[in-house]
């Protein structure tokens, strides 16, 4: 018997989980296939969620009803708000997470969801069949065999969301040794790339790397600087009140000249510098060998020793990602204060993997060549749990809407970082693992963590992703913010000379909400909510002018994003466009004039020609 699922999700990482949950929430029957059901939502790299730009994405996922914020709050063992002093737009929440708790929490959501069927195995091929797709499924043992695996099962699905992470033809490097694998201890997905090529996708190769993991019982924490979380801990989810787990510190140490000497000695066996690794790695996350070679003048680099959880003694020395040989890793680690006797539990490695050039996707994350096939996460050339989860949510949502015959939901650049990210990917593509940075957003002052709910929860409600509990919580906060704003305008407070409207006093530099309103404002009884309201009001009042200034500056771009381009426009018929520009436009098929303008190599003149042409067709269609 062949079951046809509405949606098959391939991979249960951060993208796959959000995709499956969103689609099931919309009433679709979902099959989630992954290599190992014990490794759902695994943090393959550092044990942290959030950060600058990334925390923004987590809050957006949460505001849209996604799971990542709640999972991080549940599993968090240290919470901090980065960039507190640098302004409201660039504040980023980050937590250290208990990796196992995080995975278990997410697995629990999947298992409890009656709309989601879980299957262990390797998807070895995806092909078009009828109105949907056929997936060939091999059990794990078969996938490991040297020859092509005999398919042990075939599944049918109307739509597919592919979230394969670093597993597509993954090749792991430590020193000059390399072996196939998607992650330490896990096999690569070796057959699917051929299937994707057969569908017509063009694939590229990227590289990322990770650190050796250390045994905490062999670390001398007293030799390092302790860093605790903040109190009160900043939460991700607009629904969370406080952490669920005991909190833990991180520890700071740094490399020494001896470390760098050890690294240099090992360079002749570095796969990175010997030209063995061909995939491009992230410039923002360089390996220690990269740092030593590129910045020879520095005699130290900071290392953050991060706990991986409460129930494990494994630690993550963030800052020394490496693919040097094992003996060099040991020597190097032992030159770091506090790690002189540290035992390496797992060695660091680099992994090369296939990705699909994301310009082959629409902004809905659906493949242009295969309607119904969606891609999300690292397969699209991104890096990071948060980036993956954000795409997963959108891909799952849009796959469900595709099944329901509804138009896709596309987040705009002035609406969400998720929108910025996806627009960047499908418009410009990427040549290195793409990470979110706040400077990528031209509407940075408006796309803040504190207002992610204001920006997205009403939309989430409209498209059925936001449940009643979240909707009620959103409205309660919004009403409180409105009430406080109204009171600030009417209430007069002393300013040392006379009395002024509280609103005016709060606008003055250095004046904080607490100074103006003090305890006079009524408390909700939930101090987390009270703080959120205070924070929101303070930012609204103090930064009103700047936010407006940014809106005006970015206005032209936003206007161009409002000009839709017909999907089937034949660019060859637009006069004055060069062949190269026609090719670019025909490949990207931008949905708006703004997106067209952002295609690399598009010139203002070419954009004007398209704009004039669009205006002409509009006027012609009006006349006829």
């Amino acid at each position, binding site marked *: 018997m062949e079951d046809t699922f509405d949606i098959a999700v391939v991979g249960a990482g951060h993208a796959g989980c959000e995709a499956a949950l969103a689609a099931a929430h919309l009433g679709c029957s979902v099959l989630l296939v992954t290599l190992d059901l014990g490794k759902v939502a695994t943090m393959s790299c550092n044990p942290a969620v959030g950060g*600058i730009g990334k925390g923004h994405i987590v809050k957006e996922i949460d505001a849209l009803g996604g799971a990542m914020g709640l999972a991080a709050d549940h599993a968090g063992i240290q919470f901090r708000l980065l960039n507190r002093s640098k*302004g*409201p737009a660039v504040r980023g929440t980050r937590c250290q997470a208990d990796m196992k708790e995080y995975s278990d929490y997410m697995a629990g959501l999947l298992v409890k969801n009656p709309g989601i069927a879980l299957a262990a195995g390797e998807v070895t091929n995806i092909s078009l069949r009828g109105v949907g797709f056929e997936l060939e499924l091999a059990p794990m043992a078969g996938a490991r065999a040297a020859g092509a695996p005999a398919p042990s099962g075939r599944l049918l699905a109307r739509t597919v969301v592919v979230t394969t992470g670093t597993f597509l033809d993954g090749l792991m490097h430590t020193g000059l040794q390399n072996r196939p694998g998607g992650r330490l201890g896990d096999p690569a997905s070796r057959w699917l790339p051929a299937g994707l090529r057969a569908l017509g996708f063009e694939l590229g190769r990227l590289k990322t790397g990770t650190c050796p993991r250390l045994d905490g019982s062999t670390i001398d924490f007293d030799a390092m600087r302790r860093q605790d979380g903040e109190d009160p801990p900043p939460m991700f989810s607009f629904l969370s009140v406080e952490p669920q787990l005991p909190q833990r510190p991180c520890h700071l140490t740094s490399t020494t000249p001896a470390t760098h000497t050890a690294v240099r000695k090992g360079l002749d066996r570095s796969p990175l510098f010997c030209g063995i690794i061909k995939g491009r790695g992230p410039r*923002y*996350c360089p390996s220690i060998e990269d740092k030593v070679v590129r910045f020879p003048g520095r005699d130290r680099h900071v290392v953050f020793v991060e706990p991986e959880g409460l129930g494990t003694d494994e630690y993550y020395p963030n*800052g020394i990602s490496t693919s040097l040989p094992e003996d060099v890793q040991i020597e190097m680690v032992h030159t770091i204060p506090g790690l002189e006797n540290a035992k390496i539990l797992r060695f660091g490695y680099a992994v090369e993997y296939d990705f699909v050039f994301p310009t082959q996707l629409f902004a809905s994350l659906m493949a242009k060549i295969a309607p119904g096939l969606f891609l999300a996460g690292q397969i699209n050339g991104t890096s990071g749990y948060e980036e993956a989860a954000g795409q997963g949510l959108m891909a799952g949502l849009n796959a469900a809407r595709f099944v329901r015959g509804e138009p896709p939901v596309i987040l705009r650049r002035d609406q969400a970082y998720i929108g910025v990210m996806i627009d960047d990917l499908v418009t410009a593509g990427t040549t290195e693992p793409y990470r979110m940075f706040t400077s990528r957003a031209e509407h940075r002052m408006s796309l803040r963590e504190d207002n992610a709910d204001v920006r997205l929860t009403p939309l989430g409600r409209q498209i059925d992703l936001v449940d009643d509990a979240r909707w009620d919580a959103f409205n309660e906060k919004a009403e409180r913010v409105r009430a406080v704003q109204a009171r600030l305008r009417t209430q007069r407070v002393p300013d040392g000379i006379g009395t002024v409207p509280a609103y005016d006093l709060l606008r003055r530099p250095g004046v904080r909400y607490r100074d103006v309103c003090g305890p006079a404002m009524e408390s909700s009884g939930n101090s987390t909510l009270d703080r959120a309201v205070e924070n929101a009001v303070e930012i609204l009042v103090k930064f009103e002018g700047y936010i407006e200034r940014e809106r005006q500056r970015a206005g032209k771009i936003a206007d161009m994003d409002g000009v839709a381009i017909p999907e089937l426009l034949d660019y060859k018929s637009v006069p*004055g466009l060069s062949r*190269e520009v026609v090719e670019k436009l025909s490949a990207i098929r931008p949905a708006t004039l703004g997106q067209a303008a952002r295609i690399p190599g598009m*010139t203002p003149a070419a954009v004007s020609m398209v704009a004039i042409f669009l205006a002409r067709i509009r006027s012609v269609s009006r006349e006829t």
Partner: protein
Amino acid sequence: MVRLSGRRSLEIAASVLKTPAPVGQLRPGREYVVWVVDPATGRDVDQAVFTIRRAPRSYTGEDMAEIHVHGGRAVAARVLGLLTDSGARPAQAGEFTMRAFANGRMDLARAEAVAQIVAADSRSQLECASRVLSGEFSSKLEQLYAALVDLLSAIEARIEFPEDDVPETRPDDLARRLDGVRLDVSALAATFREGRMIAQGARVVIAGRPNAGKSSLFNALSGGDRAIVTEIPGTTRDPIEAVLDWDGLPVRLFDTAGLRRSGDRIEMLGLERAERHLEDADAVIYVIDRSLPADPEDAENLSRFAEHCVVALNKSDLPPATGNWRLATADSGVQPPASRLPPPAFTLRCSALTGDGVPEIRRSVMGLLVAGPAAAGDALVITNARHYALLREAETALRQTVDALHASATEDLVAGDVTAALRALGQITGKDVSADVLSEIFSKFCIGK
């Protein structure tokens, strides 16, 4: 010469030419003697020299064919006709350049400069445009852009990587350096005053009380009989314009209605127009009839535009009135303090009737118009209104940044202002600010855990 550009250009050229070898085998850049033939009749039309260029090594970045026919419009028109019959279409004005730009052969600023050269109708226009074309403007912009990328990357690196050792730029130091860039941007933008004159013509307005001899002076200066000259005050109701070439500078000379309090409604309209012209004037020639007694209205009028004004004491062929207003005696050395001109150039005796003193007036006006280094032809001058607007936008954003820094604004706001300035500059040459700043961060700072 007939030029073809585009994917099918060689194929189309081949269809009307008899070449020594198939066009596909000709060497790019070599000159071949060929015959132009009418493909319909097979008859020879003209002998020509033929050169091909291959994409991307051509002006437009596309395949190109150049056919040099023998002079004569008839032959050229015939060849064009044959080519269009074979599938070519006539280029729109500036289209080759537009294509060069669209194919990445040229940045936007340079492409616009070419468009201006095509349209240039005076020597100074040509000079300015060719300076932009030479890339001088682009390299100056590049320099300012790079300076801002350098400053912004230092701010953004601290924002994006708060836990890395990125050195902090002190706010006052940052403000000082940003202000330095602002001054450069501002200086570049300020050249648009001259640049606009060069591109659109300098606006020189002749003004004065009725019957002072404005129209006569207009004629004397424009060397024609354009304005109607009569003895009746108020003849010139509408400003009359002449476009002149003064030492390479395009000058738009306007004659205006006499400035006086009048009850005549039609004359009032002329006055309003005169006022509008005076507001936009780059220079004013204020005409006073020195044969008449002084009138306080002259002093009143003059005080409004003394800064960019030359006073013409007209009718030097008649005896001067005694007791005239003392400004009317050039020897007195008195001049309103606001004038940019030295005293001898400010008030000049002339006779529009005999032409006496008219060249001196013209010289003084030129002194007002091109006081800057552009006159010497060695300065970079902005002549494009789009560039000017973007430079002003950058200047404003930089001023706001400096203000924000002084007000201890948070880094996100400061970065936002600098980004706005960079985007404005980047739009002139077409750059991706976000990618450039990130690249600079990665190359300059050791970041990333």
